[in-house]
């Protein structure tokens, strides 16, 4: 057995090696954990590991006849620690759930394992997925492997780094305002937020229920398509999951994209955008034109209000979802309290970190009597206008292109004292959550400091396929895949 290098693993390479008998699932698992032992001490992507479960799954895969192996047999994957894996922790990056043990599997967990994947562990995140840097984890920050004094983005920073460093082939994150796409951009991997309703959220700890969506990370568009294909589809346990059939994403990737119309919202590519990010995006648009796309300007006039809308709607929903953390049924309970009401207040004060409290406060305020119309209702109306802009744009274009993040990875601590500046880093990603449409971020080069830059494609609802085909064609033409 030759020395295995997990950083070169892909779904297709492992599938081939397994089917030829060149490698076993147990050898993959052993190689992965050995690699994790060396690498994770540097970057802190994982909060916990599920080694026993991964090894049992590997043994099960190895015992199956080769022709009966499911599509992700032996593929090492990680779950963001806000998704449930029965018998293992789900901390959500919070002290309030530090000792919580899941009693059942999330639907995505069940689907990944049924497809043969090895679940390696649970990844770090901003507490309750609230943040854009993974610095809000109440345990420790995750570091960017491209520059360890910088953040990996967030909130799914642990999943992005686990993939970027080869500790897993793929990982799941959740994306409420960019929490998959922005860390993908800042670490140099591919990350996809599916259409609202494409993937079941049963077993995902809720943050903003009209915005949350689970999606995959990978080192190539192909790997992301493989994972999406497995996790997508209707689930009777999540009434918001769509009954629409799931296309064969990996099988349909190779398609001539000549004549595809790509829309560019030029108005948004001005203020606040780093010069090098703008240059790379402009260069990428030229490349799209060279490979046969037609470039059309589009206008998304209400997108400039997206941050304000988002930071009303998401905290409002969060303040309601997080009301369940009251110290009664699960999680931390503050000791030495005398009444129920005191117990609630002390438990939440001590169990939640500053960003979570800030958003609960903001959301509670926006929903409170006298302010509901001015904030929440107003925001939901402007949200309608943001979605309508996309409806109009998609009448003339197939896909919209823009940067994923206005900047490359920023330094640890740079934005922690100024929450508003942190919120502004979500400017290009949150419109997709507000409108419910799918989006993908993929690498499009690096700046002079060697920090990755991400390009984002946005698609029509339930048209992840066209977005993936364009991404695949771009990846092939640009050669910016990190493998």
């Amino acid at each position, binding site marked *: 057995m030759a020395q295995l290098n997990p950083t070169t693993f892909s779904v297709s390479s492992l599938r081939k090696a397994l089917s030829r008998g060149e490698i076993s699932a147990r050898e993959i698992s052993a190689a992965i954990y050995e690699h994790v032992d060396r690498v994770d001490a540097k970057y802190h992507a994982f909060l916990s590991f599920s080694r026993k479960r991964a090894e049992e799954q590997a043994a099960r895969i190895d015992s199956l006849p080769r022709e009966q192996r499911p599509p992700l047999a032996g593929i090492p994957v990680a779950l963001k620690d806000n998704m449930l894996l029965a018998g293992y922790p789900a901390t959500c990056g919070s002290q309030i759930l530090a000792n919580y*043990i899941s*009693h*059942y599997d999330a639907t995505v967990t069940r689907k990944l394992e049924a497809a043969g994947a090895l679940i390696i562990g649970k990844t770090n995140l901003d507490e309750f997925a609230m943040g854009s840097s993974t610095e809000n984890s109440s345990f420790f920050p995750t570091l960017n492997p491209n520059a360890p004094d910088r953040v990996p983005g967030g909130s799914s920073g642990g999943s992005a780094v686990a993939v970027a460093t080869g500790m897993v082939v793929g990982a799941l994150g959740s994306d409420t305002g960019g929490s998959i796409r922005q860390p993908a951009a800042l670490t140099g991997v591919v990350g996809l937020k599916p259409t609202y*309703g494409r993937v079941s959220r049963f077993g995902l700890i809720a943050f903003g229920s009209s915005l949350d969506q689970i999606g995959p990370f990978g080192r190539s568009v192909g790997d992301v398509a493989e994972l999406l294909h497995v996790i997508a589809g*209707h689930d009777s346990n999540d*009434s918001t999951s*769509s*009954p*629409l059939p799931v296309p064969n994403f990996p099988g349909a990737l190779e398609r001539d994209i000549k004549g595809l119309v790509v829309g560019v919202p030029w108005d948004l590519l001005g203020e606040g955008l780093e010069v090098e990010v703008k240059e790379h995006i402009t260069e990428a648009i030229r490349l799209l034109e060279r490979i046969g796309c037609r470039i059309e300007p589009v206008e998304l006039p*209400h997108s*400039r*209000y997206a*941050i304000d*809308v988002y*930071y009303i709607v998401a905290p409002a929903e969060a303040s309601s979802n997080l009301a369940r953390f009251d110290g*009664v*049924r*699960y*999680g*931390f309970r503050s000791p030495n309290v*005398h*009444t*129920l*009401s005191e*117990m*609630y*207040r*002390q438990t*939440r*004060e001590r169990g*939640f970190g*500053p960003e979570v*409290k*800030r958003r*609960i*406060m*903001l959301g509670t*305020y926006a929903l*409170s009597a006298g302010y509901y119309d001015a904030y929440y*209702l*107003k*925001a*939901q*109306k*402007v*949200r*309608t*206008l943001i*979605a*309508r802009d*996309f*409806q109009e744009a*998609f009448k003339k274009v197939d896909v919209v292109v823009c940067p994923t993040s206005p900047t490359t990875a920023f330094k640890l601590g740079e934005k922690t004292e100024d929450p*508003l500046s942190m*919120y502004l880093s979500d400017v290009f990603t949150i419109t997709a959550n*507000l*409108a*419910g449409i799918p989006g993908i971020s993929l690498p499009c080069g690096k700046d002079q400091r060697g920090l990755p830059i991400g390009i984002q494609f946005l698609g*029509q609802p*339930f048209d992840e396929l066209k977005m993936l085909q364009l991404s695949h064609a771009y990846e092939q033409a640009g050669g910016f895949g990190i493998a």
Partner: protein
Amino acid sequence: MKISEDEVRYVAKLAHLELTSEEIKTFTSQLSSILEHMETLNEVSTVDIEPMTRIPDFGEPASLSTPVREDVPRPSIGTERALGNAPDPGEKYFRVPKVIADR
């Protein structure tokens, strides 16, 4: 819009958060600057605009409907597992401190 320390205290009460006086100060200033930023929403006319309550129809209305499952009883997780994460489990219930204060 500026928010006062008293308003922050009132909202903390609604949210069941026992904030420290330092947190009250910090949140008062941070929430004020966030709420001020949000005033730009007043530039947008929303007369006759419905608030968004579902993903809008992008041309395929049928695709966006979500089915309702049959309302039939199914096994639940059971008492033992339901109490498994409780900070203070009773035999078949969650124990909590006194609901009414002595005073």
